[in-house]
């Protein structure tokens, strides 16, 4: 290939496809390069996409996209040693307009990349980009094997382990900044899923687990309901996993046998096992001469403990990257200075606003007490409240009794939590 493109996008995930779709619609000559056999082949996520960003780009996308279920039920399970406490929030209004959908990336990413191709972008799969082309300290294209392909601008949408932003000197990898997600797809009949999670047909549940399942490691477990399968998994901070000397793959195996989980997956069949790192606090510079960085590659995710978001941010950043390229092309200036408009757009939009709002959340969420002391406390307290085995105390007295010795710590953590989440 010796053709020159206006834009080369590396990675046909949500960020790449959003950028390619937008740029192709604007009339640019776009090449999207994917190292997998097909878009989505290498991609893993928990299982839920907040609809907002994609709905802005492709209104009512759910009418054509391969979505699994519309999430109208949110559950949070606090796991103690021998008990678990589940909050079960059902809200019809989360369905109209839809707040979030469970999806399977194998199908979803192919559909989204297909939309970009339909709009006029060129997609090549099974190609690994090995390097960047530099001319006069500016990135002017990519190297893939023996091919060198030139472009005015390169968009690195190559995921959490973005080797391109590292090569461009925009990112340094540090184990402290990453979590590891491990997941399995468990097949179950549609009816069984709807019965077990109390769902109307087509509606879905998202359930998070905090406590015993990660053995004191900051992180948590999850179950997302798909049409005829469950996405079941664990996310843990890697440095803490290493410190505790726990084999990562054993965590998910034990998660399956936890009573609160086992009842939900019983009789199911594991169809697939997968894992990927999550750039919890890993950031990359988002622009340089001739290049922009979008999605996970830039570390554009936000986890505030309640909403765990990445794909919506990836899509919004891909769209912003396209806008920035459009402006740069109008001025025929692809310098760092000109492309800094990309960051400005992200600051005006929710992407960098939410990163800023929740910038203290990662530190707060690495507090081990959230995964040991507190889930156990809630379970112990409810144990006291519901048990009848002699004279009963008033609820407030039980609370005082159960929190003895930890009250100041709890109060301080609560204040910190309110400030950061």
């Amino acid at each position, binding site marked *: 290939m010796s053709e020159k493109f206006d834009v080369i996008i590396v990675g046909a995930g949500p960020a790449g496809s959003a950028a390619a779709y937008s740029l192709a619609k604007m009339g640019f000559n776009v090449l999207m390069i994917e190292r997998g*056999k097909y878009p989505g082949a*290498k991609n893993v996520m928990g299982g839920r996409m907040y609809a907002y960003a994609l709905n802005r780009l492709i209104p009512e996308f759910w009418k054509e996209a391969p979505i699994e279920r519309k999430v109208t039920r949110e559950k949070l399970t606090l796991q103690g040693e021998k008990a678990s406490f589940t909050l079960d929030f059902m809200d019809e209004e989360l369905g109209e307009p839809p707040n979030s959908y469970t999806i399977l990336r*194998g199908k979803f990413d192919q559909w989204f990349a297909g939309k970009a191709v339909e709009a006029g972008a060129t997609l090549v799969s099974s190609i*690994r980009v090995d390097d960047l082309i530099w001319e006069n300290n500016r990135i002017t294209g990519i190297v893939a094997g023996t091919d060198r392909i030139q472009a005015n601008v390169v968009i690195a949408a190559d995921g959490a382990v973005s080797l391109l932003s590292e090569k461009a000197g925009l990112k340094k*990898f540090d184990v402290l900044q990453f979590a590891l997600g491990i997941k399995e797809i468990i097949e179950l009949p549609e009816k069984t899923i709807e019965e077990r999670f109390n769902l109307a047909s087509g509606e879905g549940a998202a359930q998070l687990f905090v406590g015993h399942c990660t053995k004191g490691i900051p992180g948590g477990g999850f179950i997302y309901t798909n049409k005829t399968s469950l996405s079941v998994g664990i996310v843990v901070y890697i440095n803490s996993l290493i410190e505790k000397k726990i*084999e990562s793959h054993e965590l998910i195996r034990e998660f399956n046998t936890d009573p609160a989980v086992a009842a939900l997956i019983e009789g199911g069949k594991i169809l697939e096992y*997968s*894992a990927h790192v999550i750039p919890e606090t890993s950031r990359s510079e988002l622009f340089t001469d001739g290049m922009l960085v979008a999605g996970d590659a830039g570390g554009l995710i936000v986890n505030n403990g309640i909403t765990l978001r990445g794909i919506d941010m990836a899509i919004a950043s891909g769209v912003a990257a396209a806008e920035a390229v459009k402006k740069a092309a109008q001025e025929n200036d692809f310098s760092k200075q000109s492309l800094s408009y990309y960051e400005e757009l992200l600051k005006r939009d929710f992407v960098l606003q939410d990163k800023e709002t929740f910038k203290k959340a990662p530190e707060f969420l690495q507090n081990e007490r959230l995964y040991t002391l507190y889930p156990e406390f809630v379970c112990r307290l409810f144990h006291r409240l519901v048990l009848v085995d002699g004279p009963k105390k008033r609820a407030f007295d039980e609370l005082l009794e159960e929190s003895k010795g930890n009250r100041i710590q709890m109060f301080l953590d609560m204040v910190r939590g309110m400030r950061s989440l």
Partner: protein
Amino acid sequence: MNISIEERLGLVSFEVDKERHIKVDTSLCSECDEKTCLYFCPSKRFVLENGKIKHDSEGCIECGTCKFACPKGVVDFNYPRGGYGVYYKYG
């Protein structure tokens, strides 16, 4: 559901590449006290055999952890060549 990691990997689809995409200079591993690779790798590609670390990149699910989690920094991480390696059907 309580199946081993070997059985789990048997459920994953791979296009096997003869070329190793991750290269580990195991000569330095004997000096490593932590041997964290035995814990972090979700597909158990690092094993201890007769006191020595051995790494096999076939069966790697490309999660990326070893890129930065090896305390000795002896992992030379790259992705498999285009089209090779894991391909998720569900993801």
